[in-house]
């Protein structure tokens, strides 16, 4: 016999029921948040400071190839 399954808390509730409820609820919540994060990343993959915008180097004006003497 598993004594833990019959263990009562101070309010008379079975502890294992509360643990099972928290486990299921936590899994659902985690899955929901993970899904939202994945959707957000797909919608805007460049968002966030870790992914800087591309900005190519601009060619300058007012220069010429250097003429070598000789």
């Amino acid at each position: 016999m598993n004594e833990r399954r019959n263990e009562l808390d101070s309010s008379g509730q079975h502890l294992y029921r509360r643990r099972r409820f928290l486990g299921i609820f936590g899994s659902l919540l985690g899955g929901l948040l993970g899904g939202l994060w994945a959707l957000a990343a797909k919608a805007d993959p460049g968002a966030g400071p870790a992914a800087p915008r591309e900005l190519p180097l601009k060619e300058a004006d007012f220069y010429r190839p250097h003429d070598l003497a000789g």
Partner: protein
Amino acid sequence: MTAVTCELCPRACVIPEGAAGDCRVRVNLGGKLRATTYGRPSAVHIDPMEKKPLYHFHPGALIFSLATAGCNLHCLNCQNWQLSQRGGEEMEQIYRAEPAEVVAAAQAERCRAIAYTYSDPIVFYEYVEDTATLARAAGLTNVFVTAAYINREPLRRLCRVLDATNADLKAFDDGFYRRVNGGTLKPVLDALVTFRQEGVWVEVTNLVIPTLNDDLAMIRRMSRWIAAEMGVDTPLHFSRFTPQYRMRNLPPTPTQTLERARNEARDVGLRYVYIGNVLGDEGSTTRCPRDGTLHIRRSGFVLTENHLTPDGRCPTCNDKIPGVWS
């Protein structure tokens, strides 16, 4: 290996492949010169117009001010040496702001002008030109705060999109430019004349450094040149030196020295001569040259009184006061 010659400023740097010009920010990559700080400002602020300083150009307006790293002079007393005497890769902070974003930000902050300033905007020439073109189309004005060490052709092209400049005239002595700034005098004088010829509103700043350029005879010659070549209505700002960067051995400029300089400049006919970086308002006050009527009073960078008519006339004698007022 293809070296290039930069023709933007009088230095005419010959830049080997992989190296930067003297300004540190124009780099030869694969035989092409790249403006490496284009779209990458390192300083962005909102200032009062009086801080540039411009006293006869939209007084009291806010001006969106930006700069990138780099400079084509190397003044021993530079106030912004952390910005100007570094290449872009050495900066702690680099923003990304393409020209359209700069203009949008200036409008969002209710600025009526954009200043290219702090370091010398000559070295981010292409960024200035593209931003200024968009700014003008959006109804903003463009202000170029510079030491004016630039070749004539690039400057003429840029003037098409500039409205005003505050240009340094650091001394009326070529030796001073060579020793203290790492430049020469004549290109600066030529650039000042070009600004005027191209219709850009010009105000001139002379930073007075004790023992180095505070000789009153030299200040008199400089003022005469300004009167003759730029016109007696050109505002001249004598600015107070404070010890900075590699020139910490000299004391701040005494106020009396600045007042004597101001008197010399007025003696030779300049009509709007100001004193800057000094507490006290008379040296920064605009008065009518004809009748002494108070036009604009300033305290520091804050405009405290403005009695000019909306179209820039003296309320007493109705004379048109030179400047851009509305």
